[in-house]
Protein backbone atom coordinates (compact mmCIF):
# COMPACT_ATOMS: atom_id res chain seq x y z
CA UNK A 1 0.00 0.00 0.00
CA UNK A 2 1.51 3.32 -1.06
CA UNK A 3 2.38 5.73 1.74
CA UNK A 4 0.02 8.43 0.50
CA UNK A 5 -2.91 6.01 0.79
CA UNK A 6 -1.90 5.13 4.32
CA UNK A 7 -1.70 8.81 5.18
CA UNK A 8 -4.99 9.58 3.47
CA UNK A 9 -6.76 6.84 5.35
CA UNK A 10 -8.63 7.82 8.46
CA UNK A 11 -7.34 5.76 11.33
CA UNK A 12 -9.40 3.75 13.80
CA UNK A 13 -7.66 2.35 16.84
CA UNK A 14 -4.37 2.48 15.04
CA UNK A 15 -5.57 0.45 12.06
CA UNK A 16 -5.43 2.32 8.77
CA UNK A 17 -9.13 2.47 8.01
CA UNK A 18 -8.69 2.11 4.30
CA UNK A 19 -6.87 -1.16 4.68
CA UNK A 20 -9.86 -2.69 6.41
CA UNK A 21 -13.50 -2.64 5.51
CA UNK A 22 -16.08 -2.96 8.25
CA UNK A 23 -19.30 -4.76 7.39
CA UNK A 24 -22.15 -2.30 7.74
CA UNK A 25 -24.41 -5.11 8.90
CA UNK A 26 -22.50 -7.41 11.23
CA UNK A 27 -19.41 -5.35 11.95
CA UNK A 28 -16.98 -7.98 10.68
CA UNK A 29 -13.61 -6.57 9.57
CA UNK A 30 -12.40 -7.54 6.12
CA UNK A 31 -8.97 -7.02 4.60
CA UNK A 32 -9.85 -4.52 1.92
CA UNK A 33 -8.08 -6.10 -1.11
CA UNK A 34 -9.82 -9.37 -0.35
CA UNK A 35 -13.12 -7.60 0.30
CA UNK A 36 -12.87 -5.88 -3.05
CA UNK A 37 -11.86 -9.04 -4.84
CA UNK A 38 -14.95 -10.62 -3.26
CA UNK A 39 -17.14 -7.89 -4.80
CA UNK A 40 -17.67 -6.10 -1.44
CA UNK A 41 -19.61 -9.02 -0.01
CA UNK A 42 -19.25 -9.80 3.69
CA UNK A 43 -17.95 -13.33 4.04
CA UNK A 44 -19.51 -13.60 7.48
CA UNK A 45 -23.11 -12.41 7.00
CA UNK A 46 -23.37 -12.26 3.20
CA UNK A 47 -24.36 -8.59 3.32
CA UNK A 48 -23.69 -7.00 -0.05
CA UNK A 49 -22.11 -3.65 0.68
CA UNK A 50 -23.08 -0.51 -1.18
CA UNK A 51 -21.22 0.14 -4.41
CA UNK A 52 -20.45 3.30 -6.28
CA UNK A 53 -21.95 3.80 -9.71
CA UNK A 54 -18.58 3.00 -11.23
CA UNK A 55 -18.24 -0.26 -9.32
CA UNK A 56 -21.77 -1.20 -10.23
CA UNK A 57 -21.32 -0.55 -13.93
CA UNK A 58 -18.11 -2.57 -13.88
CA UNK A 59 -19.96 -5.45 -12.31
CA UNK A 60 -23.09 -5.31 -14.41
CA UNK A 61 -21.98 -4.41 -17.91
CA UNK A 62 -19.99 -6.45 -20.37
CA UNK A 63 -17.74 -3.45 -20.85
CA UNK A 64 -18.25 -0.47 -18.57
CA UNK A 65 -15.89 1.52 -20.76
CA UNK A 66 -18.37 1.60 -23.60
CA UNK A 67 -21.23 2.84 -21.38
CA UNK A 68 -22.77 5.94 -22.91
CA UNK A 69 -24.32 8.33 -20.46
CA UNK A 70 -27.73 9.86 -21.13
CA UNK A 71 -28.92 13.19 -19.83
CA UNK A 72 -25.75 13.66 -17.82
CA UNK A 73 -26.20 17.40 -18.16
CA UNK A 74 -29.61 17.37 -16.51
CA UNK A 75 -28.83 18.98 -13.18
CA UNK A 76 -30.67 19.90 -10.09
CA UNK A 77 -32.11 23.34 -9.46
CA UNK A 78 -33.12 24.79 -6.12
CA UNK A 79 -36.82 25.55 -6.54
CA UNK A 80 -37.47 26.22 -2.85
CA UNK A 81 -34.26 28.07 -2.05
CA UNK A 82 -33.74 25.38 0.53
CA UNK A 83 -31.36 25.46 3.42
CA UNK A 84 -30.53 22.98 6.17
CA UNK A 85 -28.27 23.19 9.21
CA UNK A 86 -25.82 21.17 7.13
CA UNK A 87 -25.80 23.79 4.41
CA UNK A 88 -27.65 25.40 1.55
CA UNK A 89 -29.05 22.87 -0.92
CA UNK A 90 -26.85 23.92 -3.87
CA UNK A 91 -23.78 23.67 -1.65
CA UNK A 92 -24.78 20.19 -0.54
CA UNK A 93 -25.24 19.19 -4.17
CA UNK A 94 -21.83 20.62 -5.05
CA UNK A 95 -20.25 18.73 -2.19
CA UNK A 96 -21.95 15.50 -3.27
CA UNK A 97 -20.77 16.05 -6.82
CA UNK A 98 -17.27 16.53 -5.61
CA UNK A 99 -17.17 13.51 -3.32
CA UNK A 100 -18.83 11.11 -5.77
CA UNK A 101 -17.56 12.46 -9.05
CA UNK A 102 -21.14 12.23 -10.32
CA UNK A 103 -23.42 15.09 -11.27
CA UNK A 104 -26.56 13.57 -9.76
CA UNK A 105 -27.77 10.69 -7.58
CA UNK A 106 -28.55 8.58 -10.61
CA UNK A 107 -26.47 7.86 -13.67
CA UNK A 108 -28.36 6.72 -16.76
CA UNK A 109 -27.22 5.51 -20.13
CA UNK A 110 -26.83 2.66 -22.54
CA UNK A 111 -24.56 -0.35 -22.20
CA UNK A 112 -24.47 -4.04 -22.89
CA UNK A 113 -25.30 -6.99 -20.65
CA UNK A 114 -24.39 -10.42 -21.96
CA UNK A 115 -24.35 -8.99 -25.43
CA UNK A 116 -27.74 -7.26 -25.19
CA UNK A 117 -28.05 -3.54 -25.64
CA UNK A 118 -29.68 -2.29 -22.47
CA UNK A 119 -30.86 1.00 -20.99
CA UNK A 120 -29.22 1.17 -17.58
CA UNK A 121 -29.76 3.41 -14.57
CA UNK A 122 -27.68 3.19 -11.42
CA UNK A 123 -28.33 5.15 -8.25
CA UNK A 124 -25.47 6.52 -6.19
CA UNK A 125 -26.24 6.34 -2.50
CA UNK A 126 -23.21 8.47 -1.76
CA UNK A 127 -24.97 11.37 -3.49
CA UNK A 128 -27.29 12.85 -0.83
CA UNK A 129 -28.45 9.37 0.16
CA UNK A 130 -29.33 8.55 -3.43
CA UNK A 131 -32.34 10.80 -3.08
CA UNK A 132 -34.58 11.56 -6.05
CA UNK A 133 -35.20 15.19 -6.91
CA UNK A 134 -36.24 16.79 -10.16
CA UNK A 135 -32.99 16.11 -12.00
CA UNK A 136 -32.83 12.45 -10.99
CA UNK A 137 -36.50 12.04 -11.87
CA UNK A 138 -35.92 13.68 -15.24
CA UNK A 139 -32.96 11.43 -16.00
CA UNK A 140 -34.93 8.33 -15.05
CA UNK A 141 -37.97 9.37 -17.09
CA UNK A 142 -35.75 9.98 -20.10
CA UNK A 143 -34.14 6.58 -19.65
CA UNK A 144 -37.55 4.90 -19.69
CA UNK A 145 -38.47 6.88 -22.79
CA UNK A 146 -35.22 5.92 -24.48
CA UNK A 147 -35.85 2.25 -23.77
CA UNK A 148 -39.36 2.70 -25.10
CA UNK A 149 -38.27 4.37 -28.33
CA UNK A 150 -35.46 1.95 -29.01
CA UNK A 151 -37.34 -1.04 -27.61
CA UNK A 152 -34.37 -2.13 -25.56
CA UNK A 153 -34.73 -3.69 -22.10
CA UNK A 154 -34.17 -1.47 -19.10
CA UNK A 155 -32.26 -2.29 -15.93
CA UNK A 156 -32.42 -0.02 -12.88
CA UNK A 157 -30.16 -0.46 -9.87
CA UNK A 158 -31.80 1.30 -6.94
CA UNK A 159 -30.14 2.55 -3.78
CA UNK A 160 -31.89 5.51 -2.26
CA UNK A 161 -33.33 7.05 0.86
CA UNK A 162 -36.34 8.25 -1.12
CA UNK A 163 -37.52 11.62 -2.35
CA UNK A 164 -35.17 14.57 -1.88
CA UNK A 165 -36.76 16.73 0.81
CA UNK A 166 -34.94 19.85 -0.33
CA UNK A 167 -37.11 20.06 -3.43
CA UNK A 168 -40.41 19.59 -1.61
CA UNK A 169 -43.38 18.65 -3.78
CA UNK A 170 -41.19 18.92 -6.88
CA UNK A 171 -39.34 15.86 -5.56
CA UNK A 172 -42.57 14.12 -4.56
CA UNK A 173 -43.93 14.42 -8.09
CA UNK A 174 -40.94 12.50 -9.44
CA UNK A 175 -42.58 9.42 -7.97
CA UNK A 176 -45.59 9.87 -10.24
CA UNK A 177 -43.50 10.91 -13.21
CA UNK A 178 -41.08 7.97 -13.11
CA UNK A 179 -43.84 5.46 -12.33
CA UNK A 180 -45.90 6.70 -15.25
CA UNK A 181 -42.88 6.37 -17.53
CA UNK A 182 -42.28 2.81 -16.31
CA UNK A 183 -45.94 1.96 -16.85
CA UNK A 184 -45.75 3.15 -20.45
CA UNK A 185 -42.74 0.95 -21.02
CA UNK A 186 -44.65 -2.04 -19.66
CA UNK A 187 -47.55 -1.30 -22.01
CA UNK A 188 -45.09 -1.30 -24.88
CA UNK A 189 -43.99 -4.81 -23.96
CA UNK A 190 -40.39 -3.86 -23.26
CA UNK A 191 -38.96 -5.63 -20.22
CA UNK A 192 -37.81 -3.69 -17.18
CA UNK A 193 -35.75 -5.34 -14.47
CA UNK A 194 -35.05 -3.67 -11.14
CA UNK A 195 -32.12 -4.61 -8.96
CA UNK A 196 -32.80 -3.36 -5.45
CA UNK A 197 -29.54 -2.70 -3.65
CA UNK A 198 -29.03 -1.52 -0.09
CA UNK A 199 -31.00 0.52 0.82
CA UNK A 200 -34.08 0.96 -1.31
CA UNK A 201 -36.51 3.09 0.63
CA UNK A 202 -39.61 5.25 0.61
CA UNK A 203 -40.22 7.31 -2.53
CA UNK A 204 -38.04 5.11 -4.72
CA UNK A 205 -39.35 1.76 -3.50
CA UNK A 206 -42.89 3.12 -3.77
CA UNK A 207 -42.55 4.33 -7.32
CA UNK A 208 -40.65 3.16 -10.40
CA UNK A 209 -38.77 0.41 -8.51
CA UNK A 210 -41.86 -1.50 -7.40
CA UNK A 211 -43.48 -1.67 -10.83
CA UNK A 212 -40.64 -3.51 -12.56
CA UNK A 213 -41.51 -6.70 -14.43
CA UNK A 214 -38.89 -8.60 -12.49
CA UNK A 215 -37.41 -7.41 -9.21
CA UNK A 216 -34.16 -8.80 -7.91
CA UNK A 217 -32.94 -8.02 -4.42
CA UNK A 218 -29.32 -7.98 -3.30
CA UNK A 219 -28.59 -10.16 -0.28
CA UNK A 220 -29.05 -8.22 2.95
CA UNK A 221 -30.35 -5.08 1.26
CA UNK A 222 -32.87 -3.09 3.26
CA UNK A 223 -36.04 -2.65 1.21
CA UNK A 224 -38.84 -0.70 2.79
CA UNK A 225 -41.52 1.92 2.39
CA UNK A 226 -40.81 3.87 5.55
CA UNK A 227 -37.68 6.01 5.46
CA UNK A 228 -35.00 5.21 7.98
CA UNK A 229 -35.55 8.17 10.28
CA UNK A 230 -39.27 7.66 10.18
CA UNK A 231 -38.75 4.14 11.44
CA UNK A 232 -36.39 5.34 14.15
CA UNK A 233 -39.12 7.78 15.12
CA UNK A 234 -42.35 6.95 16.81
CA UNK A 235 -44.41 5.60 13.95
CA UNK A 236 -43.36 2.01 13.61
CA UNK A 237 -43.73 -0.02 16.73
CA UNK A 238 -41.87 -3.23 16.20
CA UNK A 239 -39.38 -2.90 13.37
CA UNK A 240 -36.39 -5.10 14.00
CA UNK A 241 -32.95 -5.39 12.51
CA UNK A 242 -33.84 -8.33 10.32
CA UNK A 243 -37.09 -6.88 9.07
CA UNK A 244 -37.26 -5.38 5.64
CA UNK A 245 -34.27 -7.14 4.14
CA UNK A 246 -34.37 -8.46 0.58
CA UNK A 247 -34.85 -11.94 2.02
CA UNK A 248 -37.75 -10.68 4.15
CA UNK A 249 -39.59 -9.02 1.27
CA UNK A 250 -38.95 -12.09 -0.90
CA UNK A 251 -40.76 -14.25 1.66
CA UNK A 252 -43.57 -11.73 1.64
CA UNK A 253 -43.98 -12.05 -2.10
CA UNK A 254 -42.75 -8.58 -3.07
CA UNK A 255 -39.70 -9.44 -5.14
CA UNK A 256 -38.88 -12.26 -7.53
CA UNK A 257 -35.52 -13.41 -6.29
CA UNK A 258 -32.48 -12.60 -4.18
CA UNK A 259 -29.43 -13.00 -6.37
CA UNK A 260 -25.82 -12.82 -5.19
CA UNK A 261 -23.64 -10.24 -6.88
CA UNK A 262 -21.49 -12.76 -8.70
CA UNK A 263 -24.54 -14.17 -10.49
CA UNK A 264 -26.37 -10.95 -11.29
CA UNK A 265 -25.05 -10.25 -14.75
CA UNK A 266 -25.77 -13.80 -15.85
CA UNK A 267 -29.25 -13.86 -14.32
CA UNK A 268 -30.19 -10.47 -15.76
CA UNK A 269 -28.77 -11.47 -19.11
CA UNK A 270 -30.85 -14.61 -19.10
CA UNK A 271 -34.01 -12.73 -18.14
CA UNK A 272 -33.43 -10.30 -20.99
CA UNK A 273 -32.89 -13.18 -23.37
CA UNK A 274 -36.18 -14.71 -22.27
CA UNK A 275 -38.34 -11.60 -21.99
CA UNK A 276 -37.03 -9.33 -24.72
CA UNK A 277 -39.57 -9.22 -27.48
CA UNK A 278 -38.34 -11.21 -30.46
CA UNK A 279 -35.13 -9.26 -30.68
CA UNK A 280 -33.75 -10.83 -33.81
CA UNK A 281 -36.66 -9.78 -35.99
CA UNK A 282 -37.48 -6.49 -34.29
CA UNK A 283 -33.91 -5.34 -34.32
CA UNK A 284 -34.13 -4.94 -38.05
CA UNK A 285 -37.27 -2.81 -37.80
CA UNK A 286 -36.75 -0.74 -34.73
CA UNK A 287 -33.19 -1.19 -33.62
CA UNK A 288 -31.83 0.00 -36.94
CA UNK A 289 -34.08 3.01 -36.99
CA UNK A 290 -32.92 3.98 -33.54
CA UNK A 291 -29.34 3.46 -34.49
CA UNK A 292 -29.77 5.54 -37.58
CA UNK A 293 -31.37 8.31 -35.64
CA UNK A 294 -28.56 8.13 -33.13
CA UNK A 295 -25.96 8.31 -35.90
Amino acid at each position, binding site marked *: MPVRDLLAGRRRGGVPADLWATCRKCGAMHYRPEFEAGLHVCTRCDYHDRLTVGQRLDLLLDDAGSFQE*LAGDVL*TSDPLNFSRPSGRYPDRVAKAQESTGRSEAVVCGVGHIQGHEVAVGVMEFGFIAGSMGGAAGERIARLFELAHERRIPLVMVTSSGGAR*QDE*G*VFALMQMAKTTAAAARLADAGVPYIALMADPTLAGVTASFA*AVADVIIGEPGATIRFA*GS*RVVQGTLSRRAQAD*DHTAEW*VLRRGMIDAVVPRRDQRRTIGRLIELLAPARASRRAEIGDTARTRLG
Partner: protein
Amino acid sequence: MLDFERDLDELRSRIAELEAESDLDSASDVLRQLELMQLELEARTADVFSRLTPWQRVQLARHRDRPHTLDFIERMIDGFVELHGDRRHGDDMAVVGGVGSLQGRRVVIVGHQKGRGTRQNVERNFGMAHPEGYRKAIRLFQLAARFGLPVITLLDTPGAGPALEDEERGQSWAIAESMAVLARLETPIVVAVIGEGGSGGALAMGVGDRILMLEHAIYSVASPEAAAAIIWRDSKFAERAAEALGLTSEVLYAADLIDRIVPEPPGGAHRDYDATAESLTAALVEALDELQAIPPTELVTERYAKFRAMSAHVESSPDEVVVDGSGVVPEDRHGL
Protein backbone atom coordinates in the same frame (compact mmCIF):
# COMPACT_ATOMS: atom_id res chain seq x y z
CA MET B 1 -59.39 25.50 18.72
CA LEU B 2 -56.16 26.77 17.18
CA ASP B 3 -54.19 29.63 18.74
CA PHE B 4 -54.95 32.08 16.03
CA GLU B 5 -58.61 31.17 16.10
CA ARG B 6 -58.99 31.97 19.81
CA ASP B 7 -59.13 35.71 19.40
CA LEU B 8 -61.76 35.42 16.67
CA ASP B 9 -63.71 32.95 18.73
CA GLU B 10 -63.95 35.33 21.68
CA LEU B 11 -65.52 37.90 19.42
CA ARG B 12 -67.79 35.22 18.02
CA SER B 13 -68.90 34.26 21.54
CA ARG B 14 -69.66 37.83 22.45
CA ILE B 15 -71.79 38.18 19.33
CA ALA B 16 -73.62 35.00 20.23
CA GLU B 17 -74.24 36.23 23.80
CA LEU B 18 -75.54 39.54 22.60
CA GLU B 19 -77.77 37.79 20.08
CA ALA B 20 -79.14 35.58 22.81
CA GLU B 21 -79.90 38.52 25.07
CA SER B 22 -81.45 40.65 22.40
CA ASP B 23 -84.64 39.90 20.56
CA LEU B 24 -86.50 41.25 17.58
CA ASP B 25 -87.76 44.10 19.68
CA SER B 26 -84.34 45.14 20.92
CA ALA B 27 -83.34 48.70 20.62
CA SER B 28 -81.90 49.48 17.24
CA ASP B 29 -78.60 50.47 18.84
CA VAL B 30 -78.19 46.90 20.12
CA LEU B 31 -78.86 45.60 16.64
CA ARG B 32 -76.44 48.13 15.24
CA GLN B 33 -73.84 47.03 17.74
CA LEU B 34 -74.34 43.42 16.67
CA GLU B 35 -73.94 44.37 13.05
CA LEU B 36 -70.74 46.22 13.79
CA MET B 37 -69.35 43.31 15.72
CA GLN B 38 -70.22 41.02 12.80
CA LEU B 39 -68.34 43.29 10.47
CA GLU B 40 -65.41 43.41 12.83
CA LEU B 41 -65.38 39.63 13.02
CA GLU B 42 -65.31 39.38 9.26
CA ALA B 43 -62.55 41.93 8.96
CA ARG B 44 -60.46 40.33 11.66
CA THR B 45 -60.98 36.86 10.18
CA ALA B 46 -59.90 38.11 6.79
CA ASP B 47 -56.91 39.77 8.41
CA VAL B 48 -55.82 36.74 10.44
CA PHE B 49 -56.31 34.38 7.48
CA SER B 50 -54.37 36.63 5.14
CA ARG B 51 -51.34 36.42 7.38
CA LEU B 52 -51.32 32.71 8.22
CA THR B 53 -47.89 31.13 8.42
CA PRO B 54 -47.27 27.81 6.70
CA TRP B 55 -47.32 26.13 10.09
CA GLN B 56 -50.72 27.65 10.82
CA ARG B 57 -51.90 26.35 7.45
CA VAL B 58 -50.69 22.90 8.49
CA GLN B 59 -52.72 23.22 11.65
CA LEU B 60 -55.79 24.27 9.67
CA ALA B 61 -55.35 21.39 7.22
CA ARG B 62 -55.30 19.05 10.20
CA HIS B 63 -58.01 20.84 12.18
CA ARG B 64 -60.02 18.25 14.05
CA ASP B 65 -63.23 19.86 12.86
CA ARG B 66 -62.12 20.05 9.24
CA PRO B 67 -64.52 18.30 6.88
CA HIS B 68 -63.29 14.89 5.81
CA THR B 69 -64.03 12.82 2.72
CA LEU B 70 -67.35 11.43 3.97
CA ASP B 71 -68.48 14.93 4.98
CA PHE B 72 -67.96 16.00 1.39
CA ILE B 73 -69.54 12.89 -0.09
CA GLU B 74 -72.60 13.43 2.09
CA ARG B 75 -72.98 16.96 0.77
CA MET B 76 -71.85 16.58 -2.83
CA ILE B 77 -72.88 13.12 -3.99
CA ASP B 78 -76.44 11.95 -4.63
CA GLY B 79 -77.36 8.31 -4.23
CA PHE B 80 -73.90 7.35 -3.00
CA VAL B 81 -73.30 3.60 -2.70
CA GLU B 82 -70.16 2.81 -0.75
CA LEU B 83 -68.20 -0.11 -2.16
CA HIS B 84 -65.90 -2.00 0.16
CA GLY B 85 -62.83 -4.16 0.01
CA ASP B 86 -59.86 -4.99 -2.17
CA ARG B 87 -61.03 -8.59 -2.90
CA ARG B 88 -57.68 -9.76 -1.59
CA HIS B 89 -57.06 -9.00 2.01
CA GLY B 90 -59.34 -6.56 3.74
CA ASP B 91 -61.50 -3.50 3.81
CA ASP B 92 -59.37 -0.56 4.83
CA MET B 93 -61.45 1.99 6.68
CA ALA B 94 -58.80 4.66 6.03
CA VAL B 95 -59.92 4.75 2.40
CA VAL B 96 -63.56 5.10 1.40
CA GLY B 97 -65.02 4.97 -2.05
CA GLY B 98 -68.04 4.23 -4.11
CA VAL B 99 -70.34 5.38 -6.86
CA GLY B 100 -72.84 8.17 -6.94
CA SER B 101 -73.71 11.25 -8.86
CA LEU B 102 -72.34 14.76 -8.66
CA GLN B 103 -74.85 17.24 -9.96
CA GLY B 104 -76.23 14.59 -12.28
CA ARG B 105 -72.83 13.31 -13.38
CA ARG B 106 -72.19 9.64 -12.56
CA VAL B 107 -68.82 9.36 -10.79
CA VAL B 108 -66.59 7.03 -8.83
CA ILE B 109 -65.29 8.91 -5.82
CA VAL B 110 -62.49 7.67 -3.56
CA GLY B 111 -60.75 9.41 -0.71
CA HIS B 112 -58.67 9.01 2.41
CA GLN B 113 -60.87 9.03 5.48
CA LYS B 114 -59.76 10.38 8.83
CA GLY B 115 -61.74 9.81 11.99
CA ARG B 116 -62.88 12.10 14.78
CA GLY B 117 -62.23 11.08 18.37
CA THR B 118 -60.08 8.20 19.53
CA ARG B 119 -62.32 5.30 18.57
CA GLN B 120 -62.89 6.54 15.03
CA ASN B 121 -59.27 7.49 14.64
CA VAL B 122 -58.12 4.02 15.54
CA GLU B 123 -60.70 2.52 13.17
CA ARG B 124 -59.59 4.85 10.38
CA ASN B 125 -55.91 4.55 11.33
CA PHE B 126 -55.77 8.39 11.44
CA GLY B 127 -56.36 8.40 7.71
CA MET B 128 -53.14 6.50 7.04
CA ALA B 129 -54.07 3.92 4.42
CA HIS B 130 -52.92 0.34 4.54
CA PRO B 131 -51.91 -1.43 1.32
CA GLU B 132 -55.42 -2.88 1.07
CA GLY B 133 -56.78 0.67 1.07
CA TYR B 134 -54.84 1.50 -2.07
CA ARG B 135 -55.83 -1.83 -3.56
CA LYS B 136 -59.48 -1.06 -2.88
CA ALA B 137 -58.93 2.28 -4.59
CA ILE B 138 -57.31 0.56 -7.58
CA ARG B 139 -60.29 -1.76 -7.88
CA LEU B 140 -62.66 1.19 -7.92
CA PHE B 141 -60.51 3.10 -10.43
CA GLN B 142 -60.68 0.11 -12.76
CA LEU B 143 -64.40 -0.23 -12.20
CA ALA B 144 -64.80 3.41 -13.18
CA ALA B 145 -62.85 2.92 -16.39
CA ARG B 146 -64.80 -0.23 -17.25
CA PHE B 147 -68.08 1.63 -17.13
CA GLY B 148 -66.84 4.95 -18.46
CA LEU B 149 -67.29 6.87 -15.22
CA PRO B 150 -64.91 9.68 -14.32
CA VAL B 151 -62.93 9.39 -11.08
CA ILE B 152 -62.75 11.93 -8.28
CA THR B 153 -60.16 11.42 -5.56
CA LEU B 154 -60.05 13.37 -2.31
CA LEU B 155 -56.64 13.49 -0.64
CA ASP B 156 -56.45 13.81 3.13
CA THR B 157 -53.80 11.76 4.88
CA PRO B 158 -50.74 12.32 7.04
CA GLY B 159 -49.10 9.69 4.85
CA ALA B 160 -49.40 5.99 4.11
CA GLY B 161 -49.31 3.61 7.07
CA PRO B 162 -45.66 2.97 8.00
CA ALA B 163 -46.22 0.10 10.42
CA LEU B 164 -44.62 -3.29 10.13
CA GLU B 165 -47.88 -4.87 8.92
CA ASP B 166 -48.06 -2.28 6.15
CA GLU B 167 -44.57 -3.25 5.05
CA GLU B 168 -45.52 -6.92 5.26
CA ARG B 169 -48.33 -6.46 2.81
CA GLY B 170 -46.27 -4.36 0.42
CA GLN B 171 -47.10 -0.73 1.10
CA SER B 172 -44.61 0.45 -1.53
CA TRP B 173 -46.01 -1.92 -4.11
CA ALA B 174 -49.59 -0.85 -3.46
CA ILE B 175 -48.74 2.85 -3.77
CA ALA B 176 -46.70 2.39 -6.93
CA GLU B 177 -49.37 0.23 -8.53
CA SER B 178 -52.04 2.79 -7.73
CA MET B 179 -50.02 5.51 -9.46
CA ALA B 180 -49.33 3.23 -12.42
CA VAL B 181 -53.01 2.41 -12.77
CA LEU B 182 -54.11 6.03 -12.54
CA ALA B 183 -51.44 7.11 -15.01
CA ARG B 184 -53.04 4.95 -17.68
CA LEU B 185 -56.69 4.97 -16.68
CA GLU B 186 -58.79 5.77 -19.72
CA THR B 187 -61.30 8.00 -17.99
CA PRO B 188 -61.18 11.54 -16.61
CA ILE B 189 -59.59 11.89 -13.17
CA VAL B 190 -59.95 14.94 -10.94
CA VAL B 191 -57.87 15.07 -7.79
CA ALA B 192 -58.71 17.36 -4.90
CA VAL B 193 -56.42 17.84 -1.93
CA ILE B 194 -58.94 18.59 0.79
CA GLY B 195 -56.79 18.48 3.94
CA GLU B 196 -53.39 16.91 4.44
CA GLY B 197 -51.72 15.83 1.23
CA GLY B 198 -49.10 13.73 2.95
CA SER B 199 -46.31 12.41 0.78
CA GLY B 200 -46.51 9.22 -1.27
CA GLY B 201 -49.53 8.14 0.71
CA ALA B 202 -51.46 11.05 -0.79
CA LEU B 203 -49.84 10.99 -4.23
CA ALA B 204 -50.82 7.32 -4.59
CA MET B 205 -54.31 8.62 -5.38
CA GLY B 206 -53.11 11.95 -6.73
CA VAL B 207 -52.31 11.19 -10.36
CA GLY B 208 -55.02 12.84 -12.43
CA ASP B 209 -55.93 15.25 -15.17
CA ARG B 210 -56.75 18.16 -12.90
CA ILE B 211 -55.31 18.75 -9.47
CA LEU B 212 -57.45 20.96 -7.26
CA MET B 213 -56.55 22.04 -3.77
CA LEU B 214 -58.66 23.57 -1.07
CA GLU B 215 -57.27 26.93 -0.03
CA HIS B 216 -55.99 25.79 3.34
CA ALA B 217 -55.06 22.25 2.43
CA ILE B 218 -51.40 21.30 2.33
CA TYR B 219 -49.45 19.01 0.04
CA SER B 220 -46.00 17.94 1.05
CA VAL B 221 -43.12 15.62 0.25
CA ALA B 222 -43.15 14.61 3.92
CA SER B 223 -45.05 15.65 6.99
CA PRO B 224 -43.35 18.66 8.59
CA GLU B 225 -42.54 16.45 11.57
CA ALA B 226 -40.94 13.75 9.42
CA ALA B 227 -39.07 16.35 7.37
CA ALA B 228 -37.85 17.94 10.60
CA ALA B 229 -36.68 14.54 11.79
CA ILE B 230 -34.87 13.99 8.52
CA ILE B 231 -33.42 17.48 8.12
CA TRP B 232 -32.92 18.73 11.67
CA ARG B 233 -32.91 15.26 13.21
CA ASP B 234 -35.57 16.53 15.61
CA SER B 235 -39.27 16.62 14.90
CA LYS B 236 -39.58 19.74 17.08
CA PHE B 237 -38.43 21.72 14.08
CA ALA B 238 -41.70 20.94 12.34
CA GLU B 239 -42.72 24.58 12.21
CA ARG B 240 -39.51 25.49 10.46
CA ALA B 241 -39.87 22.50 8.12
CA ALA B 242 -43.39 23.66 7.23
CA GLU B 243 -41.94 26.97 6.10
CA ALA B 244 -39.16 25.37 4.10
CA LEU B 245 -41.21 22.70 2.33
CA GLY B 246 -43.42 24.95 0.23
CA LEU B 247 -46.55 23.02 1.08
CA THR B 248 -49.29 25.66 0.77
CA SER B 249 -51.74 25.92 -2.08
CA GLU B 250 -50.35 29.30 -3.19
CA VAL B 251 -46.78 28.03 -3.48
CA LEU B 252 -47.88 24.93 -5.36
CA TYR B 253 -50.13 26.88 -7.68
CA ALA B 254 -47.34 29.31 -8.47
CA ALA B 255 -45.05 26.34 -9.15
CA ASP B 256 -47.62 24.87 -11.54
CA LEU B 257 -47.84 21.68 -9.54
CA ILE B 258 -51.57 22.14 -8.98
CA ASP B 259 -54.17 23.54 -11.35
CA ARG B 260 -56.56 25.42 -9.14
CA ILE B 261 -57.06 26.69 -5.63
CA VAL B 262 -60.58 26.12 -4.34
CA PRO B 263 -61.56 28.93 -1.96
CA GLU B 264 -62.75 28.10 1.54
CA PRO B 265 -65.32 30.09 3.48
CA PRO B 266 -64.07 32.76 5.90
CA GLY B 267 -62.37 31.16 8.88
CA GLY B 268 -61.66 27.94 7.00
CA ALA B 269 -63.51 24.87 5.77
CA HIS B 270 -64.42 23.74 9.27
CA ARG B 271 -66.47 26.91 9.82
CA ASP B 272 -68.96 25.98 7.11
CA TYR B 273 -69.08 22.47 5.66
CA ASP B 274 -71.90 23.28 3.28
CA ALA B 275 -70.21 26.31 1.80
CA THR B 276 -66.96 24.39 1.42
CA ALA B 277 -68.69 21.49 -0.28
CA GLU B 278 -70.44 23.92 -2.59
CA SER B 279 -67.17 25.57 -3.48
CA LEU B 280 -65.53 22.20 -4.16
CA THR B 281 -68.52 20.94 -6.13
CA ALA B 282 -68.36 23.92 -8.45
CA ALA B 283 -64.68 23.34 -9.11
CA LEU B 284 -65.13 19.59 -9.64
CA VAL B 285 -68.04 20.05 -12.01
CA GLU B 286 -66.11 22.55 -14.06
CA ALA B 287 -63.11 20.23 -14.28
CA LEU B 288 -65.23 17.17 -15.12
CA ASP B 289 -67.09 18.98 -17.84
CA GLU B 290 -63.86 20.13 -19.44
CA LEU B 291 -62.42 16.63 -19.35
CA GLN B 292 -65.53 14.82 -20.50
CA ALA B 293 -65.01 16.35 -23.93
CA ILE B 294 -61.55 14.83 -24.38
CA PRO B 295 -61.20 11.28 -25.81
CA PRO B 296 -59.89 8.87 -23.13
CA THR B 297 -56.68 7.94 -24.95
CA GLU B 298 -55.89 11.60 -25.37
CA LEU B 299 -56.55 12.15 -21.67
CA VAL B 300 -53.93 9.53 -20.86
CA THR B 301 -51.40 11.14 -23.19
CA GLU B 302 -52.01 14.59 -21.70
CA ARG B 303 -51.91 13.22 -18.18
CA TYR B 304 -48.51 11.75 -18.87
CA ALA B 305 -47.31 15.02 -20.31
CA LYS B 306 -48.64 16.87 -17.28
CA PHE B 307 -46.68 14.84 -14.74
CA ARG B 308 -43.74 14.50 -17.10
CA ALA B 309 -43.41 18.27 -16.97
CA MET B 310 -43.34 18.45 -13.19
CA SER B 311 -39.78 19.08 -12.37
CA ALA B 312 -37.27 21.69 -11.46
CA HIS B 313 -34.03 20.95 -13.18
CA VAL B 314 -31.59 22.70 -15.46
CA GLU B 315 -29.68 21.41 -18.42
CA SER B 316 -26.12 22.58 -18.74
CA SER B 317 -26.37 22.34 -22.51
CA PRO B 318 -30.03 21.95 -23.37
CA ASP B 319 -31.00 20.07 -26.51
CA GLU B 320 -27.71 18.26 -26.54
CA VAL B 321 -27.99 15.00 -24.73
CA VAL B 322 -25.24 12.94 -26.16
CA VAL B 323 -25.60 9.25 -26.72
CA ASP B 324 -23.80 7.62 -29.58
CA GLY B 325 -22.90 11.03 -30.92
CA SER B 326 -26.32 12.62 -31.31
CA GLY B 327 -29.35 13.73 -29.33
CA VAL B 328 -31.85 11.08 -28.31
CA VAL B 329 -34.42 13.20 -26.62
CA PRO B 330 -36.47 14.88 -29.33
CA GLU B 331 -36.50 18.63 -29.03
CA ASP B 332 -40.26 18.79 -28.79
CA ARG B 333 -40.13 16.94 -25.51
CA HIS B 334 -37.94 19.46 -23.77
CA GLY B 335 -40.89 21.67 -23.26
CA LEU B 336 -42.69 19.07 -21.18
